[in-house]
């Protein structure tokens, strides 16, 4: 197992390097650079001002040299300096990452727990009204754009009902501590986490249902039934466990897109995470910050995928850690 993990880490480093090089050039294909953006924001600028900015950000150097400087920095765990935010990128990301992790992991947990539960129920009661209701609801959440769900939930729960705060991570100026602070953050977390969670829940529901229905028909389930095992035990130990493999695979893939989903949600709910940082960096052509967020997100995807492979083994002991 250790050699498996080691190999995956080495491969991961190469993947990260490829991501950095590709994105480095991709970002620069887009028209405009940070100097153009900041000159615009300054409200008055001359060519000298723009040139000063370009020199300050080393944008006047040849591209290969810029890439070399960047990769050299990353190798020594230095993600560079954010042009616009005037801060080291690693510091900016470190400040924002906890908020994103709190949001995406909560959303991930919500989607998995609800998705598997509803999927199991739908499979158990396949063909009944309960199955139809679950399947249709899942489709509805899947087909509705995340930003629309976010805006509508703000309208309902913040504007009309006044139950939940509409933006931010905590109540600014309230200075809560201890349990009151936890409750405050939780209240702010509900809408953004549910917005992302419900979208992904829909796919897990459908995947679990389909997979369970398929496993249900297999011979070992019939054997278990013939042995006289109770239905609950058959569903839980034999059907669900075997049906979970595709769900785990999907969850591994989704772990990366959760950060992508968080871009929209963090923007609408003013959640101070790295999704929003990414969005702002893109609009401001803050190259270092953009690349830094890509590096961190890619690393997260690689880690999640490694964890997924390890979970495979736990779910199904027949799988070996073959490289």
């Amino acid at each position, binding site marked *: 197992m250790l050699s498996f993990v080691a190999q995956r880490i080495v491969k991961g480093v190469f993947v990260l390097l490829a991501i950095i090089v590709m994105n480095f050039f991709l970002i620069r294909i887009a028209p*405009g650079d*940070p100097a153009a953006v900041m*000159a615009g924001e300054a409200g008055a600028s001359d060519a000298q001002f723009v040139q000063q900015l370009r020199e300050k950000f080393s944008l006047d150097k040849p591209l290969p040299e810029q890439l070399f400087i960047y990769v050299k920095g990353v190798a020594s765990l230095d993600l560079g300096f954010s042009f616009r935010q*005037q801060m080291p990128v690693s510091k900016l990301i470190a400040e924002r990452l906890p908020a994103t992790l709190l949001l995406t992991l909560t959303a991930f947990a919500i989607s998995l727990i609800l998705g598997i539960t509803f999927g199991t129920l739908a499979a158990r009661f396949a063909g009944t009204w309960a199955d139809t209701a679950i399947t249709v609801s899942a489709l509805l959440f899947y087909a509705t754009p995340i930003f629309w769900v976010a805006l509508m939930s703000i309208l309902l729960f913040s504007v009309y009902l006044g139950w939940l705060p509409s*933006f931010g991570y905590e109540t*600014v100026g309230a200075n809560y501590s201890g349990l009151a602070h936890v409750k405050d953050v939780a209240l702010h977390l509900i809408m953004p986490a549910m917005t992302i969670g419900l979208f992904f829940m829909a796919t897990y529901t459908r995947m679990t249902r389909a997979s369970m229905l398929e496993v249900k028909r297999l011979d070992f389930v019939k054997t278990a039934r013939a042995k006289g095992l109770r239905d609950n035990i058959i569903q839980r130990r034999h059907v669900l466990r075997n049906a979970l493999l595709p769900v785990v695979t999907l969850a591994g893939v989704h772990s990366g897109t959760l950060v992508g989903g968080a871009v929209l949600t963090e923007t*609408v709910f003013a959640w101070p995470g790295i999704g929003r*940082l990414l969005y702002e960096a893109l609009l401001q052509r803050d190259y270092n910050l953009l690349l830094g967020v890509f590096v961190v997100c890619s690393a997260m995807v690689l880690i999640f995928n490694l964890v997924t492979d390890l979970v495979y083994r736990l779910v199904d002991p027949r799988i070996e850690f073959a490289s």
Partner: protein
Amino acid sequence: MLKKFVLALALSGVSTMALAQEPKIGGTINAVIQPEPPGLMLALVQNGPTQMVSGNIYEGLLRYSKTLEPQPGLAESWTISPDAKTYTFKLKQGVTWHDGKPFTAADVLFSIETLKVTHARARNNLVQLDKVEAPDDYTVVFTLKQPFGPFIGIFEVGSMPIIPKHIYEGTDVKTNPANNTPIGTGPFMFKEWKKGSFIQLVKNPNYHVKGKPYIDGIYWQIIPDAAARSVAYETGKVDVLPGGSIENFDVPRVSKLPNTCVTGDGWEFFSPMAWMWLNNRSPVLANKKVRQAIMYAVDREFAKDVIWNGLGKVATGPSSSAIKFYTDNVPKYPYDPAKAKALLKEAGYKGEKVRLMPLPYGETWSRWGEAVKQNLVDVGMNIETIATDVPGSNQKNMEWDYDISFTYLYQYGDPALGVGRNYVTSAIQKGQLFNNLEGYSNPEVDKLFEEGAVATPDSKRKEIYEKVQKILVEDVPVAWQLELQFPTITNCKIKNLITTGIGVNDGFRDAWIDK
């Protein structure tokens, strides 16, 4: 409904005056700031959000009334020599920086030298400065190479912020760690900046204006989505929506919310003016008749009434009606598609493709771009819309890679500061984002703007600027659209928020909360 809204906006100033009350002490104001400022050190960063927050931390030598008359700031009095070349400022005594050190003339001298390097607009404003001296700790004397009409108008906090010499002397101003915890002389002190969430300022207990500020502090809340900003106001989480915080089409709805006050005041100094750069280098637009045809083809009243919800004013020419030496005695361009078609025919326009680039600043600007495109198509022009984001649009403008491009620029109270730069030949410079991007060049206009900047007295300047406005309106180097108005929306419990022509950017020192 629209008329009622505009009337309410116009009357808001009157009602504020009528209800003058004794200010109450205490409370905190929550205001929206968007986008998040890149930094708060005003000598280094001059974008709108930075000025809005840092106008509370730093101060300038002067402030300007809503009629743009100079008022005391860090300078308590000033005199101008009869030859209009020497400006002597007497500084206020007893002013301290937020760290307790005394403010003196040495800080002003140090700030001027720094701004010449770091502040593009200040550098331009100081172009006629020969020397600046401090005969004593509380006197600063500016000597000009020649008289410069708008000089008394360049001392507000955003144009010339005064920074502490004792913090920055002998250091690299750009990388000084103190930039993260800015120290000024202003009514509020920096307390905390939680990136992505809020910036907190607290009352300066040693502020040099006795009894002010009235409030205990300000939270600037960072909310990236325009709809979410509306909701934040609607749910009472923020009290102040500075101009431009929400989409224009949402302004009438939010303005009608209970206990909501709206004012268009506070933009007199900036006088934002929207126009379309017409690339005079383009074979089609090089023809004056085509440019005039565009002026006749675009329905600017429609844009004002529908797209801007009745806010603003149709521009008559290069100068905003709020700034000095404006005249409306210029050729007029009413909406007249028939005349536009005739002019295009006279110009020999054969349907060549013209690229139109709307300003990528949100929905209002996109809609405006679509409306103008429709107007131009209606008179037979072949228009292709270029869609891009802010960096892309800036880049294209800087490289003159457009035919028609929307913009809006500030005019800073005087044609020598905010108008001339858009039309003089010397301001044609590839690689810059503002000024004469259209490539218009007229020696007579150059000469008049040059004379206007240094002429004395004001009656002479008036004569010159009126003449140049007529020439420009006849030539149509750019297609002037609207004098923009960005209303500031507040909860009515917030009183006296805007007291100068600089508006919200001038700080909340006079504001108080009626509890």
